[in-house]
């Protein structure tokens, strides 16, 4: 177990540096000069430009910039945005919002997705099963921004249950609707994955054995069927948590949630290199840790998997 974890962590290192380097290169080779952009229409004083470039290390070759950035990163310094605000500051304002939004969406998709998948998987071909299949097919087909407008119209404009956009991004009850919209696509995938997985496992020998032993139905489903069927679902959910946090650009924009997606969208458009790289670095770490946890969870769910 210990050596397995060590090997996985060692494998994560090149991925971490590769991803951050790739993003760094992309952001800092974007066309357009961010320092010149700071001056707007006015012609900039070359001496001032040079001093700003020196301050942000922009006068160095790109690989030196990257090493410098990484050196600071490991001391907890994510750099300063071109407007002078520390990137850690910007992230401290936006990440709590996105984490709440992503966790709400995650809980929603996990609980409802598992229930729907279980109901339709246990009764293949029934009315419930067909309903779940049609519902998930519809949710997968409708793009998230269309879904967001439909939700806004129905729940805010017609029913008046919520305000169309989020007024206070820290308020959990206001984040409910955006979270449901954000999680709906993954909900459909979770439901379908659970359904398929349960359908496969229902025919397994161990299920027949459990029934033959005379175990109560509840025990068979929760101890035997679910535990075996959950492995692919857990894999999906694990990688989805990172995707929910980084993929909320559209949903956060439509509902005016002041989270990472909004900040990132603005930062890319304004060529705010340090902010983009900082946020992506954190998202990459979240993704890597989540996929490590998923691998370790396998051993809990399936005792046949042992990490030597």
């Amino acid at each position, binding site marked *: 177990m210990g050596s397995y974890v060590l090997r996985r962590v060692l494998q994560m290192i090149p991925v971490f540096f*590769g991803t951050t380097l790739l993003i760094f290169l992309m952001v800092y080779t974007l066309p357009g000069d961010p320092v010149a952009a700071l001056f707007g229409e006015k012609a900039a004083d070359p001496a001032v430009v040079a001093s700003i470039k020196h301050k942000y290390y922009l006068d160095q070759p790109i690989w030196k910039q990257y090493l410098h950035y990484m050196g600071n990163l490991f001391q907890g310094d994510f750099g300063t945005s071109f407007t002078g605000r520390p990137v850690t500051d910007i992230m401290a304002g936006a990440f709590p919002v996105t984490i709440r939004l992503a966790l709400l969406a995650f809980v929603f998709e996990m609980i409802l997705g598992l229930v729907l998948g279980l109901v339709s998987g246990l009764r293949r071909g029934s009315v419930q099963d067909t309903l779940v299949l049609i519902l998930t097919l519809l949710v997968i*087909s*409708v*793009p*998230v*921004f*269309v879904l967001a407008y439909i939700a806004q*119209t129905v729940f805010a404009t017609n029913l008046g249950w919520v305000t169309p956009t989020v007024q206070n991004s820290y308020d959990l009850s206001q984040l409910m609707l955006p979270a449901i919209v954000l999680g709906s696509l993954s909900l459909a995938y979770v439901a379908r994955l659970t359904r398929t997985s349960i359908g496969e496992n229902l025919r397994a020998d161990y299920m027949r054995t459990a029934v033959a032993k005379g175990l109560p139905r509840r025990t068979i489903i929760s101890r035997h069927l679910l535990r075996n069927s959950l492995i692919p679902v857990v894999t999906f959910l694990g990688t989805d948590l*990172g995707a929910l946090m980084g993929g909320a650009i559209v949903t956060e924009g439509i509902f005016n949630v002041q989270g990472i997606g909004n900040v990132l969208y603005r930062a890319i458009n304004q060529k705010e290199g340090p902010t983009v790289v900082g946020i992506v670095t954190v998202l990459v770490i979240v*993704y890597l840790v989540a996929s490590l946890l998923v691998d370790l969870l396998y051993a809990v769910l399936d005792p046949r998997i042992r990490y030597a």
Partner: protein
Amino acid sequence: MSDTITKDASAPAGDNSPKATPAKKEKPERVASLWSDAVRDLRRNPLFIIGGVLVLALIVISIVPGWFTDGSPFANGACDLSHSLERPSAEHWFGYDVQGCDIYTRTVWGARNSIIVGILTTTTVTVVGALLGLWAGWKGGVIDSILSRITEIFFSIPTLLGGMLIMSMLPFAGNAYSVSLVMAVLGWPQIFRIMRASVLSNKNNDYVMAARALGAGAGRITFRHILPNAIAPVIVVAAISLGVFIGAEAALSYLGIGVQPPQISWGLMISDAQVRFLAAPHVLLFPAAVLSVTVLAFIMLGDAVRDALDPKLR
């Protein structure tokens, strides 16, 4: 596929259809393949028929949009501001947008970009991902480790964010081809993983050893023996991702980093309509509905292909 599986699968079909029996006597090994079995399955699947008809119609619309509309949306005088935001009527089924352009005409002409992106991206992703996956799975060792780490790098970049960054670097951004390229760059790792896993599970099968014992070279074994046996899961995922890529193009165009005006894209039309959504919902709803139906058609097709090719679900 191994003999046992193909024979099992073809046995009931041979009993049911009278046509299959004489054909089976002539060339028994041809009829029993996984692929002919899948084709027979597909023909009976209502999902495949509905999806297929819709997709065919969309392809015809995207090739010759002029058959379905009176005028081109790019023609002089195609838009008339005096019709701005007019509701749907008998002559103009979808109504007019804020510029006074006929929404039906624009929607029909917008199909082309969606279809190009869907087909081009899926083809590129499948070819690149499958070839690299075949290489990594077959060779193993250092090549496998390097390629696998590279795919992990691509996996850990959030898709939409990576799309925005790459798009702003491209010199020829803003058309269906650049959108396809960006999505292909971000999409190939998924196919790679599936192909690699599929090759690994096929590599140690007896038929590979038999081919090697008969003196087949590495190239022949990988392309003539392993590839046809390992490609089924890749085709399943590729078929479903067609619809997903069409949705992603709309999302990128909606964010203003995909297809650029004056070209027409459904995502762009939705983005233009969102400001006046409450006053004129039809401007948003018609392109959104057509987009959803298109994605739905491709996903239904993909689902049908999966049902036909995945023997576990039978």
